[in-house]
């Protein structure tokens, strides 16, 4: 997801002036290859999910050759499926814990505190936070498996209590802390640029009347960045709900205790071979994504 550019009136007037003399026909030719790829691999699959979700299509066996149209049966089954409700609930917990609370709070706190930190400290913290964001997910998963391992894990050694298999005994808590670590960089950067837009004079005034740090944040800073808090929360929630990295840490286990929706879809579709049922669940995820994205774009549009 990217934020659309702020349309200044001047830019709007400059708008689409065909300065190179391209012409509409050639311009359409320029756009076509990209649209073909997007159409085949993004739009068509999204629409096709709806159809697959209405059939009993399976990966192997008779139903793989001639799937039947079953209407809303898959959706009705989902309502009764304890594993699905479990996945839905775990996804909500994961999003609330790691994105809405974890990344948001830590990201803002870091952005706020680093403004006045020494340059060396600031650069060091920023570099580490960014590094945890850019490292490939498979590598990051091994780092955390090593950290949380029962026998030789670093965390056990640090706490002086080896023998706790964190990923087995506290799978969701581990994933929430992990994802906070993984994704805080985005919130930190977004809030840093938002804080730069708060008028220094107002901060100065707050300090001169003796406002505490918390009072300043609540009464001076927050009104300025309220829009950013909302859009940031929507974006990171969307990414977290669709994140497949937990699969690399726990694969949904033990016994479905960390099976968020993306893992549930994978397990049903590929491991279980129930493509129709998994497509119906995917469609629900697409629908939630669409609602969040529309909300996000609506907010951005209202702000500008």
């Amino acid at each position, binding site marked *: 997801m990217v934020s659309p550019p702020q349309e200044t009136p001047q830019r709007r007037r400059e708008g689409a002036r065909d300065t190179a003399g391209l012409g509409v026909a050639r311009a359409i030719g320029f756009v076509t290859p990209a649209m073909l790829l997007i159409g085949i691999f993004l739009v068509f699959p999204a629409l096709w999910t709806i159809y697959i979700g209405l059939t009993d299509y399976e990966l192997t066996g008779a139903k793989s050759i001639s799937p039947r149209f079953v209407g809303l049966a898959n959706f009705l089954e989902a309502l009764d499926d304890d594993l699905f409700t479990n996945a839905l609930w775990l996804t909500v917990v994961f999003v609330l814990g790691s994105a809405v609370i974890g990344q948001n709070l830590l990201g803002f706190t870091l952005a706020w505190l680093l403004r006045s930190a020494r340059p060396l400290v600031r650069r060091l913290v920023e570099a580490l936070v960014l590094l945890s964001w850019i490292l490939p997910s498979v590598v990051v998963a091994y780092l955390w498996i090593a950290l949380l391992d029962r026998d030789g894990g670093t965390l056990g050694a640090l706490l002086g209590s080896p023998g706790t298999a964190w990923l087995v005994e506290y799978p969701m808590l581990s994933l929430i802390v992990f994802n906070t670590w993984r994704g805080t960089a985005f919130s930190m950067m977004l809030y840093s640029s938002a804080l730069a837009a708060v008028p220094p004079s107002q901060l100065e005034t707050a300090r001169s009347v003796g406002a505490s740090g918390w009072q300043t944040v609540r009464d001076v800073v927050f009104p300025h960045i309220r829009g950013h808090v909302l859009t940031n929360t929507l974006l990171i929630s969307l990414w977290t709900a669709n994140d497949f990295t937990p699969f690399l840490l726990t694969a949904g286990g033990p016994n479905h205790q960390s099976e968020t929706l*993306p893992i549930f879809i994978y397990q049903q579709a590929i491991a279980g071979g129930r493509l129709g049922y998994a497509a119906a669940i995917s469609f629900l995820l697409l629908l939630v994504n669409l609602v969040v994205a529309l909300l996000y774009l609506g907010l951005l549009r209202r702000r500008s």
Partner: protein
Amino acid sequence: MTPGAVLRRTGYVAFMAAVLAFFAVPMLWLASAPFDSNPGLGLRWPDWTLDNIGKTFAHPYALGSLLNSLVLCVVATAATTAFATLAAYALSRVRIPGRDALLYVLLLLSSVVTGTAAMVPIFVLMFQLGLINSQYATGLVIAGGLLPAAIFILKDFVDSVPRSYEESARVFGASPTQVLTHVVLPVARPGIATILVWAFVQAWGNFLLPFLLLRDVEAQPAAVLLRTLKDEGGSANLTVIPVFSLLYAIPVVALYLFVSKRYGFRFHGGIKA
């Protein structure tokens, strides 16, 4: 200093130290385990050796998977960069009918249709077309996912390029093709380079799509191989995994450093898969 100020200062230092530890400790393993003669999952001062590197290169699939990653990335990156540049330029300069609606839909698509939400239909599509295990097809699937965001970022960039350059070139009789290759492309190079690096990093790190679509170990990229590295006994192969993780992570970090040094770390409203 008043007692309150001392307390606050202490709290601040303690918090910063905790944050630094929180972010640094998990990564230390990547610095120590690859060079330890007896690497384990725990963190310890290594018994320094470079033997693991040789053993990693001797692994039958290690080098091949890095090459596979390269093939996948080149296909995905080339398609994304070339097609996004063409589309972004046309959308920036020509009022194609329905342009604004198209841009809005692209913006929605860039976040709504994620790999996880579309994994079932994409898998079924490739399965029915017989394209499972095709690296080129997988590269194109990845490109399809990256294109909406790439077009948007590049269009924003091209919008900010002054039109007067192109107008002057036209006045002096340059053809549209000449204007594009001699004026627009050079001026837009930083934007194109950013997209190039971004697409490469995204494709290099992508796990889900190659994991779904490339089932044959001969075709699998490093992301998938790393996930499945096991020794003969079936447990995680700790001689190879740390070195291989490091080898696999280095290009990503190097490219980010390159871009941020060359063009500054620009914050495009955050772009991530």
